[in-house]
């Protein structure tokens, strides 16, 4: 395990450190296995049927028949084109808009808008956000209502496909709304590590305005830290399933939705073109990331010349201002989408072009109370179990790393990002085959494990920095006082880092609640969560009922983050009260 770093441990002991027990030392390898083995096996198990090999169904002969079947599907070319245009345009636009925003305002604090509006958008599950964006953009949605009839003259919802449009524009908008806050958060943390203001001042002394200086000086320095998050957004946007089901066109849909459709088919023979489509999806993502990397090299080369030309004025200035404006509009769109979910869930009678329901009612909530309970419980159970497992593994890895004295290396980040870079559709079928072989398919355990694949990286990314930043002298002092390493961990490190641990747990819950495809595959359709229900209802269900499920789905991560902030605060207050008495 040489490439490990963050997760791996060097064998030699740094002097003065306490040796880790054997199981703790193996923790990093175990953790890697927990999430890399199912993905590796899953990729293999998806790739083999693409060439005609599926245990128990067909075997022994390599064939390209699945690919011929794939090409014979009607609309396959359109589906691929749609995948590429929506995924690439959403990523390129999101990245450029975020850069524009940062160039116009690159103080370390991301500002009130980011904290107040972007937070809930960031926390909201993709499916709920897509449903909300749909409510907003639909022909009978809030935007059309806002403009009708005074501007449009419409007294009936127009017969225009404003969502599920054939060009995937609604899907692109939905992706933008959801991915921009994520990239802003990543940018804010990268900007915190560069003396931005001093460099901009130095550039001002050389005659450069803020925007030009930001693009020429700050961006090249923070980009390396944004690379993996951007690739993750790119991979996600190209292969997203739940948002594409809700906002994307139905016939043909994007490639990953096609693959899911065929994987869900009652006819086993459809698994073969499905596997080919899944593998093609993998290829598209891999090629897009490679293309992006090539683009980076090219842009970097051109940028060096551009910087050396010494131009003080730049056309980027108005463009960045425009970008900043668009970010604000998209943030408001996201906030309005979440609000629309709540309004629909409490609406009773809402005539077209009225801006608000004529009557409000909790009827939908009452009627759904019984139906909602079981998926809600399942969602909570899976989220809690996956987050708890992820926390245990991550804490074990970090503790093993500290006891061995081997600092985390950035190369290991790539391993952590594997589940975020490989399209879910490209390996979940194979993982399900693995679960079936282990007689786990359709069980809660399988669902929890499949969620863990995605929860784990985010929990690690969230917890690693604060954990590594803790002043090591606290632990050394406690050790010097005779406490065992285990006691130091439980009584010193965990309490000191309680807030970070709880935030990481909340991140884990949010990621788990977000998962649609893993629940569908690992649950074999038998495990129903709020997310799977919301996506199912979104296609033509009652908006009030859909609203109930989507509101609950969005509320869970928010409650999680709220508790993560509140609990340490209450604890500190209790300490103060005890000290006062």
């Amino acid at each position: 395990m040489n490439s490990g770093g963050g997760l791996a441990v060097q064998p030699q002991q740094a002097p003065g450190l306490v040796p880790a027990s054997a199981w703790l030392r193996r923790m990093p390898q175990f953790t890697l296995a927990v999430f890399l083995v199912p993905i590796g096996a899953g990729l293999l198990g998806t790739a083999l049927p693409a060439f005609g090999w599926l245990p128990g169904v067909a075997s022994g002969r390599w064939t390209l028949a699945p690919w011929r079947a794939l090409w014979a599907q009607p609309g396959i070319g359109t589906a691929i084109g749609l995948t590429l245009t929506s995924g690439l345009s959403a990523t390129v636009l999101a990245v450029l808009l975020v850069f524009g925003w940062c160039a116009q305002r690159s103080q370390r604090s991301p500002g009130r808008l980011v904290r107040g509006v972007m937070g809930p958008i960031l926390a909201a599950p993709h499916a709920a956000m897509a449903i909300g964006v749909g409510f907003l953009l639909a022909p009978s949605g809030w935007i059309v209502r806002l403009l009708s009839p005074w501007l449009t003259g419409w007294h009936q919802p127009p017969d225009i496909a404003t969502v599920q449009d054939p060009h995937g524009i609604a899907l692109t908008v939905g992706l933008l709304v959801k991915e921009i806050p994520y990239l802003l958060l990543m940018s804010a943390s990268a900007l915190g590590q560069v003396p931005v203001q001093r460099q901009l001042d130095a550039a001002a002394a050389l005659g450069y305005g803020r925007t030009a200086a930001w693009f020429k000086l700050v961006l090249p320095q923070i980009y390396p830290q944004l690379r993996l998050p951007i690739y993750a957004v790119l991979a996600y946007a190209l292969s997203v399933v739940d948002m594409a089901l809700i906002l994307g066109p139905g016939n043909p849909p994007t490639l990953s939705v096609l693959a899911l459709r065929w994987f869900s088919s009652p006819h086993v023979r459809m698994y073969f073109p499905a596997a080919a489509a899944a593998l093609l999806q993998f290829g598209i993502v891999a090629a897009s990331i490679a293309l992006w990397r090539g683009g980076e090299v090219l842009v970097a080369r051109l940028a060096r010349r551009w910087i050396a030309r010494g131009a003080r004025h730049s056309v980027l200035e108005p463009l960045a201002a425009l970008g900043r404006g668009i970010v604000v509009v998209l943030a408001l769109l996201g906030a309005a989408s979440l609000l629309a979910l709540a309004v629909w869930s409490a609406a009773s009678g809402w005539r077209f072009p009225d801006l608000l329901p004529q009557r409000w009612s909790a009827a939908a909530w009452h009627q759904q109370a019984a139906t909602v309970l079981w998926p809600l419980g399942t969602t909570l159970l899976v989220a809690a179990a996956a987050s708890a497992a992820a926390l245990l593994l991550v804490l074990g890895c970090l503790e093993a790393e500290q006891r061995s004295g081997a600092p985390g290396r950035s190369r290991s980040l790539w391993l952590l990002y594997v589940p975020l870079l490989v399209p879910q559709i490209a390996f979940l079928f194979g993982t399900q085959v693995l679960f079936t072989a282990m007689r786990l398919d359709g069980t809660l355990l399988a669902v929890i494990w499949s969620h863990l694949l995605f929860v784990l990286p985010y929990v690690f990314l969230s917890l690693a920095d604060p954990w590594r930043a803790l002043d090591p002298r606290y632990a050394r002092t406690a050790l010097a006082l005779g406490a065992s390493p285990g006691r130091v961990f439980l009584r010193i490190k965990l309490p000191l880092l309680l807030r970070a641990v709880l935030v990481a747990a909340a991140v884990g819950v949010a990621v788990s609640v977000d998962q649609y495809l893993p629940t569908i595959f690992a649950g074999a359709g038998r495990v129903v969560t709020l997310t799977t229900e919301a996506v199912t209802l979104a296609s033509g269900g009652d908006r009030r009922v859909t609203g109930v499920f989507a509101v609950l789905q969005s509320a869970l991560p928010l409650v999680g983050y709220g508790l993560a902030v509140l609990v340490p605060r209450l604890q500190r207050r209790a300490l103060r009260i005890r000290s006062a008495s």
Partner: protein
Amino acid sequence: MSDAALRLEQVSIALDGRVLIPPLTEQILPGTVLTLMGPSGSGKSTLLSFLGGTLRGPFRTAGRIWVGSREVSTVAAEQRRIGTLFQDDLLFPHLTVGENLAFGLARAVRGRSARAARITAVLAHAGLEGFASRDPATLSGGQRARVALLRLLLAEPQVLLLDEPFNKLDAALRAEFRRFVFEHAAAAALPVLLVTHDRADAEAAAGTVLEFRTDAMGTVFIERTSPEQSESAASAPGVESVREGGG
């Protein structure tokens, strides 16, 4: 190159009702140095930020700033043509030495070969031949400081502000870099405002010295020493103080 003087007209700065800089009226002629001395926290650097146009925060400022016949008090920092050399060299780590200089080099020098030639010449003149393709991180502190000054001068400022740029260098390098800065500033005939808390810097500058002092009541006042006086001061202690304000 430039023959514009830097003029401050009743420039003052306060923070939370406390006077940092009492009203200050000064003229710095091209090719001369005015030195501001005072303990840290006395607001010297704040004054430079205000002159450079990069002052942020809850400061209350007043007064007018002139570069030659241009009033720049309300002009954006990047358009004032006032160059500041900071305590840190702030060489941009993602660019080579040559690219750092090219970033600074005024747009008036056009064409890749012309710009490259200019940078090669400037580096050679500064005793840094062949450094254009080097990574700034591989340079010594003294070399980095020199590149930072060259970068600033290539932008063709009309005024040079020195914000304790010698502070982080060790004694030997310090004198050498000081000489380097003053020679270049004199060659470009720039008015120079130097902020320091090291008397040796002030002596090397050989110009008027303004010293920030606080009286027993906590009121900030400024003691002014012109070069002739400073020579006599060396023989006989007791400098004549000129109250320039205070509040």
